[in-house]
Every structure is written in C-alpha cells, then in structure tokens.
C-alpha cells in the first residue's frame, strides 16, 4: 500500500496564485484579469509584481471574458480569475461565442468551486460548472486536487493553445502530490493499484478516495485509485485498463452527478466495457451554508460514502 503524505493543508487557490506568479516571471505574454476578487483568487502577488499585466475589471464578468478574448489578438495569454459560479454560469454566452467558438487562447481560472465554498451558500456554490464547460466544443476542463497539482496545472495550461477551464477551491485541504510533478493535460494519474474496484476521483474528492482505499484495504478490499484532473479530454485508456481488471467503478466529484465526471465515464463504459458503476456526487440539488467539512459529510462527499459505494458496486458484480 502506497502511503500518501499530507505535507500540510493548503488551499488550491494559493497553488493557482503561485503558478500565476511564476508564469508572470517566465512568460511575458501572460496577462491576468480579475473581477474584484484579487485577494480571494490569490492574484495579489502577480498584481504587485506585474501591474501593467494585471487588469482589474471590477464587478463585470461578462466584460472580463470579452476583454480576455480580445487580448489574445496580439498574442497575449489571458488568465481570468473569479469564483467558479461567475466564471461559468454568469458568462456562459460570452465564453461560448467570444472564447470557445472563436477558439481564443483564454484560461478561465475558477476558484471557490463546489460546495466547499461553505458559508456563502448556494448562490455561490456552483455544482454545474464542469458540465457547462465540458459541453463547449474545444474547451479543455481541468479540476485539480491539491496545492501542488493546481500550481503545476496553472503553469502547464499556458503552454497549451486553446481555451481552458481550470477549477479549484477555497478551503485548505491536504497537499499530497509531488512538489515537482509533470502535469500532462488529459492524462490521469494512478495513485493506488488494486483489483477489486476502480475509484476515479477528481478535485477535493481525490484525498477522500485515498482515505477510503486505505480503509477498504484494511478490510481486504483492494481499490484501484485514479486521479482524473482533466475532465475533458478524458483519459479513456487509464479508466478502461482499470475496469478491465476490476469490472466495476465508482466516480467521485464535488459536482452534480448530472453533467459531471461520472457522466463522462458512464458514456465511456457504455461504449466499451459494460460494468456496474456507482456515483459519489451531489444528487441534483443546490448546496447550502455551512462549514465545508460539515457540508461534505451532509452531501455524502466523503470517504465514508466512497467506501459504501465501493461495497455496493462490488456486490453488483456478477
């Protein structure tokens, strides 16, 4: 059993801020835009070091997306920063026409995604953003799991030409992936090997999946755990290879089960290897106010539910 060491809790948004700062130093074409949430997005260091390449648009996200699209004409690589809700649902048509359909090299960076935004409640807790973004042709969709991975992803997406949606969160969560990592867009990461059940997880649920796999292992059940940071394009091979030995799968995400990672995987298995599947995610409801950890428990986005779903899916195997 591989041990994953939490090198100290940290927030994924700080990983974004650190990655953006590094990009500012290494790529003069990187420009950052923010809609009055510079502190929340951890963009202050970039702003202070590169004031000419930082654009404060005020509380006007639609305008921000349009300006970002225009900046690409002239070779700039704009990174927009606001909460996930205001990065997607609020500006869907601007992204659709001016960025996705126009194939502009804009990086839409979205913090405070999902229910772990916590106390602000459902107006701010978007659980539909992965679905909205993955439906746009040509959009790359990434949901990172910890500080180190978010930093690596932020740096990597600047090298990729095309629109990208990068989703991360607010709370401090375990930082367990390597500080130096080779982040490859569209490539899943195998965390734990096992033959009994496949767990495919994204974002904050990856750490919960590791906890669940450890507990299952203690009970004699060996889980194959995959960290899928890129929702689109999905790493089909790593998932198919895994279920061809486990014959069952559980998807885990801090998102509505409608439209999320699990839905993409279910399409994959229906077309390739039929096997039982269970979903850990929010079941078509809005969120509510509360502490992130309490909400994760209430909405069954925790290791306990992952274990339950694993046992259920194994029992469905013929």
């Amino acid at each position, binding site marked *: 059993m591989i041990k994953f060491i939490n090198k100290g809790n940290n927030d994924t948004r700080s990983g974004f801020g650190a990655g953006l700062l590094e990009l500012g130093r290494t790529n003069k074409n990187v420009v950052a835009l923010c809609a009055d949430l510079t502190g929340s997005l951890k963009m202050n260091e970039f702003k202070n070091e590169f004031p000419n390449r930082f654009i404060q648009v005020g509380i006007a996200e*639609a305008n921000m997306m349009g*300006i970002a*699209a225009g*900046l690409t004409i002239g070779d700039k690589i704009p990174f927009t920063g606001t909460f996930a809700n205001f990065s997607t649902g609020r500006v869907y048509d601007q992204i659709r026409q001016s960025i996705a359909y126009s*194939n502009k090299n804009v990086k839409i960076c979205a913090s405070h995604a999902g229910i772990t935004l916590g106390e602000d409640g459902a107006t701010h807790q978007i659980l539909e953003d992965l679905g909205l973004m993955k439906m746009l042709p040509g959009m790359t969709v990434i949901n990172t799991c910890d500080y180190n991975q978010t930093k690596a992803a932020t740096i990597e997406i600047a090298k990729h030409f095309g629109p990208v949606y990068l989703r991360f969160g607010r709370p401090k969560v375990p930082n367990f992936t390597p500080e130096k990592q080779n982040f490859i867009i569209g490539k899943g990461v195998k965390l734990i090997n096992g033959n009994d059940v496949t767990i495919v997880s994204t974002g904050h649920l990856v750490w919960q999946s590791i906890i669940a796999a450890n507990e299952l292992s203690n009970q004699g059940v060996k889980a194959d755990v995959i960290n899928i940071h890129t929702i689109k394009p999905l790493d089909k091979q790593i998932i198919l290879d895994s279920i061809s030995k486990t014959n069952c799968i559980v998807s885990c995400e801090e998102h509505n089960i409608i439209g999320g990672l699990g839905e993409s995987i279910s399409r994959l298995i229906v077309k390739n290897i039929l096997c039982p599947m269970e979903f850990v995610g929010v079941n078509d409801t809005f969120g509510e106010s509360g502490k992130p950890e309490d909400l994760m428990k209430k909405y069954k986005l925790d290791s306990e539910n992952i274990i339950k779903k694993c046992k259920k899916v194994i029992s469905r195997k013929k």
Partner: protein
Amino acid sequence: MKKLEDLVFQIRRDIVRMVNEVNSGHPGGSLGCTEFFIVLFFKIMNRRDDFDMNGKDEDLFFLSNGHISPVYYSTLARAGYFPVTELNTFRKINSRLQGHPTTHEGLPGIRIASGSLGQGMSVAIGAAISKKLNNDRNIIYSLHGDGELQEGQNWEAIMFASANKIDNIICTIDYNQKQIDGDLKEVLDLGDIPQKFKSFNWHVIKLLDGNNLKKVEEALISAKKLTGNGKPVAIIMNTIMGNGVDYMMGSHKWHGVAPNNEELKIALDQNPETLKDY
C-alpha cells in the same frame, strides 16, 4: 471619390443578391452601413494585405452586430481578403460565410465570432489593451448596432474603457433608430445616446449623415485625431436602414427579411453594376 462610389453600388448589389439567394439574412442594417464600411476599409484603416489573426502593426476592425454580415463579407471580398466569387456561398452549407461572422471556418478578415449581441466592445477593448502592451500604436475600430446598446455588457465595457483610458479605440454606433420589433424608441428608448457616452467620459462625435461618403470620412478622420488623448472615442452615426433601395429605406421590416426575385430586380435596377457582380 469615384472608386468609392462605384464600391457603394457594387456592395449594395452584393448585399441584396446574397440575401435573396438564400432567402434569409439582414439587408437593412447592411445597406445602412455600406458607406461606413467602404470608407473605413478603403480610406481610413492601416491594413496589411495578408491576414494574420494577431494583427500586429495594423489597425483592426471588430463587428459587434454580426447580423450585418453581408456588408462585412462583401467589403472583405472586395478588399481582397478572399475571392469575390465566395460571396455566392453565403449562408449555404459547408461555407466559410456563416450567417453570422466566425473565425471557426477560417475566413480571412474575421478575428472574432459575433451575432449574440453586446460582446464586441469588450473584445475590441481587449485587443486595444493588447496593442498597448505590444507598443503597437495602431487603432481598433468597432461597429455596434444602436438597439444592441440595450445589452448590459456594453455599459460594463463603456465604463471600463474610460476608467482605464483606452484611447486607441473608435467605437461607432449605427444609429438607424430601428430594431427587429420596431422603432428603438418604442421597443426600449435609449434616450440621448451621445449624452450617455459623454457622461461616461468618452469623446463623442455626432455623424449626422452616415450615408454620405465624405461626411463619414470626415468623422473618422476627426475621431482618429482624438485618439491618444486619454479617452475612448465614440461616433454616433445616423444612418438610414435599407439605404439605397427605395422600398427598404427607413423601415424596420427589412431588418431581417430578404427581397424576393421581383424585389431584387427593383433593387438591382436602382444600383447599377460597377465592379462586376460575383
């Protein structure tokens, strides 16, 4: 001006023939903006012959009200961006000339998709900032419908541009006072548009006859002189919807309706062929 006058007739012919051929499209606004497009592309803009998406070291143009694509396509073709014969593919399957302009099919001259209204000014501002960051002193031009100003995103952009001293941009508003459902004043009165831009701290030029080549040129030259002064520039351009085709002039009914074959003949009779039809 002879050559430009020839272009006026020819582009009007292109517009009505394109929309008639597919029995769809937007002739009214296209005809109303014909003189503007001709002066901008053939007299004012510093353009490179080859098309490059990044548009470095040249002036750029963005069409926000993408539904007047017929005049845009005809102008681009007549300016040499793609073969004039391609106008015959407008709105047909497998064409680069989509109903509304797009970069998706790789048509030279187009740098952004437009059609869903209210987005073009933000894009133009982004391109203007990009020019400043690149120390490129060329100018960004954009065109917007008057009805389009009902979209709230414009006012975010208008506010941003003056607050951030985006002074390398000239936004023209096609003030034909008509929209699909009727007169602007009846659908949603925008009040005093020049005054609104002024109160947002823009330079404002009122162009009272946007269908007069000379007046359009004078207005654009004046606007150019106002750039680089710490403020964005707006031209409020009065035009007549459907200009040049008598039965279309001044009526909102021709906003999004194509002439039938008989109507086309009348329109063509009023605008003799000058530079050869496509």
